[in-house]
């Protein structure tokens, strides 16, 4: 065992531990803010795994998109819907958790069996390493050109859809009385369009 392989093994073990423990924390912790920050940690560790797998471009994209955009978006959503609410206890939650845990363990067993018993065709071709970025660019503009363009259309649709879904309807008159209402939407404590069902 030379120093390169032992370093690789050590990095993999550390990253795998961070990923498994972090994702368990994301799922199990009761405070949702801790979950969101742990999710960022898991994304960073996955980016480290990509570096181990000779993919610097995708690792950078992972950090930029997941940690920089998706995680921040989730934190903003937590901030916007941050209301301490007592979840009503529902009956049979323990049984439900146990059953779903059994199903997930079964799925894990199935996947483990597939991974271990499959005869992988190793070693494959030599990884191209640092030329991967140029190769991804060639792929995106030759044989994957149509998915690339469709992805841009998809992003545009998602952006417009998110704006339409998340914006607040601005009405100049009250729906109930017909009086003119002020437009201070954020400061307005009780908008007429908010139907509070927690009191009913």
């Amino acid at each position: 065992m030379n120093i390169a392989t032992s370093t690789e093994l050590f990095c993999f073990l550390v990253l795998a531990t961070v990923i498994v423990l972090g994702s368990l924390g994301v799922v199990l912790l009761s405070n949702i803010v801790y979950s969101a920050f742990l999710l960022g940690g898991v994304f960073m560790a996955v980016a480290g795994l990509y570096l181990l797998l000779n993919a610097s471009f995708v690792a950078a994209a992972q950090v930029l998109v997941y940690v920089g955009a998706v995680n921040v978006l989730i934190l903003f959503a937590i901030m916007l819907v941050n209301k301490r609410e007592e979840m009503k206890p529902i009956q049979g939650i323990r049984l439900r958790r146990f059953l779903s845990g059994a199903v997930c363990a079964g799925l894990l067993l199935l996947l483990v069996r597939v991974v271990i018993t499959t005869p992988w065709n190793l070693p494959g071709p030599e990884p191209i390493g640092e030329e991967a970025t140029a190769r991804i660019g060639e792929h995106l503009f030759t044989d994957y050109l149509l998915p690339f363009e469709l992805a841009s259309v998809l992003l545009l649709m998602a952006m417009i859809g998110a704006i339409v879904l998340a914006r607040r309807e601005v009405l100049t008159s009250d729906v109930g009385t017909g009086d003119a209402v002020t437009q201070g939407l954020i400061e307005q404590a009780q908008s007429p369009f908010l139907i509070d069902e927690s009191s009913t």
Partner: protein
Amino acid sequence: MIDSSSGLVPIQAYLLLAAILFCIGVWGLINSRNAVRVLMSIELMLNAVNINLMTFSSYLDGQLIRGQVFTVFVITVAAAEAAVGLAILLSLYRNRVTVDMERFNLLRW
């Protein structure tokens, strides 16, 4: 540079890690009552799939790296999904004033 084709970490280790991550994501998706946590679980599952794609790309398809291209597309779709999902969540919260998944039963009956 670390050469993974002759490296010490076997391909099974990466695949097992991805399987564990995916199962944790499925469990969280089923059992979370907070809607934001459901979205986080979906992101975990997408990351597990990405690890699989990258592993196959590096170990079995080292020259063409089609797995990396697929991962880029998956990241794109995941970003779009997160944006739309959180917008739907905000809209739901505005109407229901809760994030409890058990009370989102608009389409149930």
